[in-house]
């Protein structure tokens, strides 16, 4: 369970280009559910996703992760929590070019200091699960959009996080690949993962597997609907 209490986020505070991205948001995200933050561009979805995932700190308000306050933890501890709890899938995949698929998947686990051999085996198992075992040694720039998306998901799962955070995950995928992505998310939920996505794609927001859609506009929650 992740809770946000009266969260505000202002960029460039006190400067002429000050911008308020999130205004007084209070929200509770249930575990083992798929939650979608929906809204037009500039509504604050991505910023809220960053705050939920411990990537950005709120200007005001509190964040509770499984009942523990993490708002003002020093960077090192916050990074450690983020690394162990969250897996991120970015809109532009954000893979590191020039290195292999396998290395990309292993990257988030390097700072944990586990045995290289075990880590490699785990990464290969994930790639096999996503049908990419044969491409493990290939450099990522040669992959198709769908393959890159799957590498990004495998990378998000390498540290076995409880929560998957995906920002506009279908923005660069066609209908077929988008549907495939949603199926993978459904499977991960069955495995006990909590999934939070930001999207304005109807294929995501209206998908049957989504438990809850939180609508946003101008940095506020405009409505919150709970689907079965």
């Amino acid at each position: 369970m992740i809770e946000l209490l009266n969260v505000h986020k202002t960029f460039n505070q006190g400067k002429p280009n000050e911008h308020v991205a999130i205004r007084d948001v209070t929200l509770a995200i249930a575990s083992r559910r798929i939650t979608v933050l929906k809204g037009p561009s500039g509504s604050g979805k991505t910023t809220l996703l960053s705050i939920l995932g411990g990537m950005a700190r709120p200007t005001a308000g509190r964040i509770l992760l499984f009942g523990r306050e993490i708002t003002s933890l020093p960077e090192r501890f916050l990074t450690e929590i983020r690394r162990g709890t969250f897996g991120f899938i970015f809109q532009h995949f954000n893979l590191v070019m020039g290195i292999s698929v396998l290395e990309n998947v292993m990257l988030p686990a390097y700072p944990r200091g586990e045995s290289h051999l075990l880590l490699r085996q785990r990464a290969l198992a994930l790639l096999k699960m996503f049908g990419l075992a044969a491409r493990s040694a290939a450099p990522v720039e040669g992959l198709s959009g769908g393959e890159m998306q799957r590498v990004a998901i495998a990378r998000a799962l390498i540290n076995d996080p409880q929560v998957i955070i995906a920002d506009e995950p279908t923005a660069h995928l066609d209908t077929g690949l988008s549907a495939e992505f949603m199926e993978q998310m459904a499977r991960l939920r069955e495995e006990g993962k909590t999934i939070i996505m930001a999207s304005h794609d109807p294929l995501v927001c209206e998908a049957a597997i989504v438990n809850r859609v939180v609508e946003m506009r101008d940095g506020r929650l405009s409505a919150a609907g709970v689907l079965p």
Partner: protein
Amino acid sequence: MGSIEKQRSIIDFTLASLLRRKGKNAAFLAVYTLVVFSLASVMFFSQALRKEAVALLADAPELVVQRMVAGRHDLIPLSYVEKIRDIRGVRAVRGRLWGYYYDSLSGANYTLLVPEGFTWGAGNIAVGQGVARSSMAVKGDVMPFRTYDGRLARLRVAGVLPSSTELVSSDLILLSAEDFRILFGVPRRVATDLSVEVANPAEISTIARKIAMMLPDTRPIAREEILRTYDAVFNWRSGILLLILSGALLAFIIFAWDKAAGLSSEERKEIGILKAIGWDTGDVLAMKLWEGASVSLTAFLAGVILAYLHVFTTSAILFEPVLKGWSVLYPKFRLTPYIDLAQLAALFFLTVVPYAVATIIPAWRAATVDPDAVMRG
């Protein structure tokens, strides 16, 4: 164990990252190595030469007395020998005969010296390797000399000096006192200068002062002063070379600073990705530190090893003319390997540390941004 595995993984990634920009990094490494090579070569060479000179001068007399006429070195009367010998603390005084001879056939200047206890006898000479090469003389040959009054003197080469002493004996011809006096017309009652042996080294300066007072037309020179002059000459020559190299060095520093200090947008984005997927600032800095260390240590080691080979196996073939002096008779010799660890450490700190620091600062700046910059960017 965990932290070793962690560093191992980070090093793996760093090396894989470096290999991505193979051409650029290889070119940089080559220039970096060249700079270390040049600096280390000058350092090794001048150090070894100085060391050699000190070792050779160890056998030189503690004090040499020259006669001065109108501010110039002149022949010294042997009657001074007795006067100096009477000074308390002087163990022995000897007249020395030496001079220079220009050989118009080979266009070279030879140093002619009458050694103490010349065993080959009158009419014979022993020559250095350089003289043997330039005049194509071997043992048993006769070398022609023109005396001071234009007559021809024929001296037989009775021996060639060993190559181990070549740095100082290359242009040397050893001969008997009689032949020397005939060749240059030096009268029997004078010598080139006097060598003075002093029983107690602490008294050298006192004795030198006494000689100067007793014989005002003389100039006593202590061995320490000669060593200082050698030092100054070697320092001056390596200084000239360093000055020439400093242009290249400056260009390299600007190039290295630019390369290390400016992160490309691609590198900046990568740091953002690493932070977003769970690396903290320390991990990113460790990666950059490994990157800087691997590049600069490789260049340092390669440069130093190449310089060592260059100086001690090829006798510094590239810097030869500047460091050894300009002469027809280049001595051919192999320097005794000698490395001053303090200087090597200085070179290390001047080349490796600035580069490592230059890599770290911009990475630190990039790594302290919020990880969500990647989400927003």
